[in-house]
């Protein structure tokens, strides 16, 4: 009985901390001008944290190294690009196709679906593609999985880049580097409110907070579920997991699908905010960047990954380009700090690997795996489809 109040207290303590964090996050924009750089940075940071949490399901929970996560950013972004812009001018005849959009958009050509419905579509499309991309990796293990996912990330990137050459009649698939732009701003039909990034970034920020909370919620729920246990089981010992009734193919594909779905939401959100879907946004380095967030924070640890992503995203979008960019010139050197950003990230990662290989806030299990060498998996299995 004596353990009960303690655990209760710590649970209450945790809730208080979360409530305070949420309050700070929600009130944050009030400290800045609605169009401040900090607001722009914060919106990107929120999207990056979401992506890191999505990747955390694949890499952290299920232990499937994914080097092509940028694919789901791209898929989410193109989903909104296709469903909420003038891109498909030819479709829907003269009038175009409109679902729950503002009067402003009502009269434009192409497909225009409400932002929030597009988010749903992005989850579904990304999740399905995530599972499809997962399929060829199922017979592989460890590093080989990473190579296949890397290739798929590149394939999606190339399709985005060269999509202006892929045409259906007059219609291009993507606009490549010309970008699909502009993209509709989010619109809330019931209260008839349309976001406008030219005047106020706060609504985007708050939408980002809501989406991030959803992403966190999904992470926690999945971690403490039948699936979450199955992921850990197959990460630690595939043979034992399969022998205990965990269907490997299905369980892995669900991890890919869940991770991809969350990446898709973040991608659609960012696509809408960027107001342009440009193939240059989907580089291999972005996959590594998101993976670095997961590793820095501590694979599998939800709060760790959140913190890691927050730290790297703030460094990438704010500290290097906004705060310290002219530091070298101040000390008489002839370059900008942004030119060094990859070097800085590399250095940070090496530093983490040396000082804290398990990440900033490691998950208990991952820490054990690293320090005690448990969870090694010998293969007894015969590969099969």
């Amino acid at each position, binding site marked *: 009985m004596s353990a009960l109040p303690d655990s209760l207290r710590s649970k209450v303590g945790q809730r208080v901390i979360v409530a305070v964090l949420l309050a700070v996050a929600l009130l944050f924009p009030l400290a800045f001008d609605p169009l401040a750089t900090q607001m722009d940075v914060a919106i990107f940071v929120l999207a990056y944290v979401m992506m890191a949490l999505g990747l955390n399901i694949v890499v952290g929970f299920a232990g499937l190294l994914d080097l092509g996560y940028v694919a789901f950013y791209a898929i989410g972004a193109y989903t909104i690009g296709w469903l909420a812009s003038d891109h498909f001018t030819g479709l829907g005849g003269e009038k175009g196709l409109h679902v729950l959009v503002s009067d402003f958009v009502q009269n434009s050509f192409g497909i225009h679906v409400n932002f929030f419905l597009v988010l749903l579509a992005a989850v579904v499309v990304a999740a399905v593609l995530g599972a499809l991309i997962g399929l060829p990796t199922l017979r592989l293990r460890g590093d080989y999985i990473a190579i296949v996912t890397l290739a798929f990330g590149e394939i999606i990137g190339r399709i985005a880049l060269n999509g202006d050459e892929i045409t259906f009649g007059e219609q291009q698939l993507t606009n490549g580097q010309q970008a699909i732009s502009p993209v509709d701003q989010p619109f809330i039909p019931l209260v008839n409110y349309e976001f406008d990034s030219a005047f106020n970034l706060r609504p985007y920020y708050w939408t980002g907070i809501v989406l991030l909370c959803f992403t966190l919620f999904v992470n926690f729920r999945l971690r403490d*579920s039948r699936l979450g246990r199955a992921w850990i089981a197959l990460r630690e010992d595939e043979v034992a997991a399969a022998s205990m*009734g965990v269907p490997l193919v299905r369980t892995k594909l669900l991890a890919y699908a869940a991770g991809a779905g969350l990446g898709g939401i973040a991608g659609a959100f960012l696509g809408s905010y960027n107001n342009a879907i440009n193939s240059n946004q989907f580089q291999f380095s972005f996959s590594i960047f998101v993976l670095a967030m997961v590793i820095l924070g501590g694979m599998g640890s939800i709060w760790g990954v959140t913190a890691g992503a927050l730290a790297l995203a703030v460094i990438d979008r704010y500290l290097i380009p906004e705060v310290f960019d002219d530091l070298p010139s101040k000390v008489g050197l002839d370059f900008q700090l942004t030119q060094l950003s990859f070097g800085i990230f590399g250095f940070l990662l090496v530093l983490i690997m040396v000082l804290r290989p398990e990440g900033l806030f490691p998950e208990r299990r991952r820490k054990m795996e690293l320090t005690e060498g448990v969870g090694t998996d010998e293969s007894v299995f015969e590969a099969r489809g």
Partner: protein
Amino acid sequence: MTPLLEVTGVSKVFGGLIAVNDVSFQIPPKSIVSLIGPNGAGKTTFFNTLTGLYKPSTGTIAFDGTEITAMRPDRVLASGMARTFQNIRLFSTMSARENVMVGQHARMSGGLFGSVVRTPKVRAEEKRVHEKAAEMLELVGLSKSQFDQTAINLAYGDQRRVEIARALASDPLLLLLDEPTAGMNPEESARLTRFMTRLRDERGLTILLIEHDMKVVMNVSERITVLDHGEKIAEGDPATVRADERVIEAYLGKAAHE
């Protein structure tokens, strides 16, 4: 009585090595059968073939009236055949209870959507599985204070017990135990022997075990099958097998004076 498990002419070949050679045998329901043989006789390979980890090169395996030859391991478990491993394969960073909860995976239905939304059905299922895990751990003799300990921190004998609990949690008809008494002291072995009999008598389980401890084998099994170099060399009740020339030869070697 129709056998619960019927293995017909099963072989398993790795490259040029015949690990299991044309083995046929049957297990009647509610019996305890032992599989013995010298090291490298192919016992574990045979287990792996039964449970779907290996595809048999030839032969068929029928279990509880259906053919399960080359079925996926998770399907084999779902059909009612659960196993333990020779070198314990618990999920080491999970607690004892979580390990046993994974054992019930096949008896649960919560998917991606249900887990996120935590529907009433999923909630009830989680509760049921949580309680059943405790029940199974209690059954194998773990104390309550050990339930939430990390598996790797448990004593060796307790880890074996958790592995058995994990297998039992899937409500199997047939339990395959791969050297369950390895590393146990005589008293622990005797307790496990009694436990196996109890499982059979009270829960109607059928048990197939690989075992090196002859005291356990002779005490507990109704029938014994002996493998040597992948071939079945003898079969029968303990007294018959004990007296069998070929078995003695396989274990001790041929007499030198021949």
